[in-house]
């Protein structure tokens, strides 16, 4: 199974409530995915030139002690803000510089994603446990995508949880399973695009980021996914300035969209949308197979 949910808040007055609106959406989808949960939050709260890096430590880590060596290794200022077992690191360093520096000063720390707006939290446990541990309900932002996982293709671990970040500000959640992802992963690796895990969905996230780095938009990238990937999928993908959904040709995995002047909300099941303000007046529909929607 797996559950997916996303929210794009067009009304700025709702943006401080992003986390508060997302938590019940994910909670409603617990039965679809009790193994692990995660959320990608999009919030533009940085100074120009800064990036934020979502970092995760495998065990207890004294994040404060990491700040000085990381700053020294990067040769620039860093701000580390701890959230649960993760931390968000704000700096002007590039992704390559950050990966290199982490390898030198904190090889156990994993980089879940980065961007100008993206913060990515995920862990093993129910949606309410994970959202509670990372303080999701208090988070603001203009968009979020989340996932509740019932694992089929790879292990139940924090790293195998969704969302997966494919590149700068690009994140993906997936309900379904791909069958030809190993060969696509090899093709990507031959071009220098590496995956961090053996998870099928991560390959799609990396593929989309590669397509967009090549100049395409989210819609182009999803056309590419339909051409290239074999399997069952309902995908929800976010970039810095848009979110998109697509279902495979047989539409085996569900998706419901609710649109109002205030927001666009998507979820595996309508029940996940029922706590949203003004849902009674929303235009509610299901995307057709292979019909790409972007907002």
């Amino acid at each position: 199974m797996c559950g997916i949910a996303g929210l794009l808040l067009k009304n700025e007055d709702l943006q401080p409530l992003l986390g508060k609106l997302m938590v019940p959406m994910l909670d409603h989808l617990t039965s679809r995915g009790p193994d692990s949960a995660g959320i990608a939050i999009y919030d533009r709260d940085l100074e120009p030139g800064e990036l934020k890096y979502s970092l995760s430590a495998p065990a207890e880590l004294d994040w404060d002690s990491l700040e000085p060596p990381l700053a020294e290794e990067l040769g620039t200022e860093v701000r580390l803000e701890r959230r649960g077992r993760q931390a968000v690191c704000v700096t002007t360093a590039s992704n390559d510089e950050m990966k290199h520096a982490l390898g030198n000063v904190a090889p156990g720390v994993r980089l879940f994603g980065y961007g100008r707006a993206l913060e990515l939290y995920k862990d093993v446990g129910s949606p309410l446990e994970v959202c509670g541990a990372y303080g999701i309900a208090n988070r603001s932002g203009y968009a979020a995508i989340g996932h509740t996982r019932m694992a089929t293709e790879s292990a139940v671990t924090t790293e195998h949880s969704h969302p997966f970040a494919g590149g700068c500000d690009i994140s993906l959640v997936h309900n379904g399973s791909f069958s030809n992802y190993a060969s696509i992963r090899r093709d990507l690796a031959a071009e220098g695009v590496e995956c961090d895990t053996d998870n099928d969905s991560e390959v799609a996230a990396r593929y989309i980021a590669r397509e967009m780095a090549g100049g395409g938009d989210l819609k182009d990238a999803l056309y590419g996914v339909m051409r290239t990937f074999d399997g069952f999928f309902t995908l929800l993908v976010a970039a810095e300035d848009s979110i998109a959904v697509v279902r495979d040709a047989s539409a085996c995995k569900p998706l419901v969209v609710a649109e109002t002047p205030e927001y666009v909300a998507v979820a595996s099941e309508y029940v996940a949308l029922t706590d949203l303000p003004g849902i009674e007046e929303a235009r509610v529909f299901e995307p057709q197979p292979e019909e790409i929607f972007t907002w």
Partner: protein
Amino acid sequence: MVTATVVELSCGELSVSEVNAALRGLPDGAQVRITEPRGRHNLSVGLSNKLSISIEGNAGYFIGGLCDGPDVVVDGFVGWSVGENLMSGSGRVRGNASECAAASAHGGIVVVEGDASSRAGISLKGSTLAVAGDVGHMSGFMAQAGTILIGGDAGSALGDSLYEAVIYVAGKIASLGSDARLEEISSDDVEEVRRILQAARFDHVSAEDVKRVASAKQLYNFDALKDQKY
């Protein structure tokens, strides 16, 4: 004269299990309003008493499924598999239904006043499914017995691998599935469509103007020599 009282069960106060337990305890003939369904799954499931149930709002998956008796009306839209495995009684959805409407239903009638999504009437086993609007792809897949009436258009691969069920379509058919074929309609077909239109209370379909889709029965027997090269 005795005025029937209407039992009200609020999903705002009761869990789905509590709602279904309360429904099971009601006598035949009882009228029930289920309020604030808010997309809940499995409402009015597994009932064998003859109730008249009104679900007042949008509901989730498997509404009215596994029932043998009650008449369930949803004043809203529903998720997947409304009326799944229905034995007798009826289900009526005033809005749209998502995938697999009336899946494996054996008896009774499932009516969708809006559109139904893909795989409507999948594996139908004797029930009647009437959809006023359109249905999605793979509708009627492997339907074994019973009748599907589509008041609007049908999506691709209609009636794939049909057995003995018959599909009537008033609108356009995107494509037929494997072993499904169009057949001439007979006076018996017109009679059958009239019966369904009346039961469904549809007035936008002319019984004489439907297409009949049934099995060509070419998949019934395995031909060991077919496509043999050696």
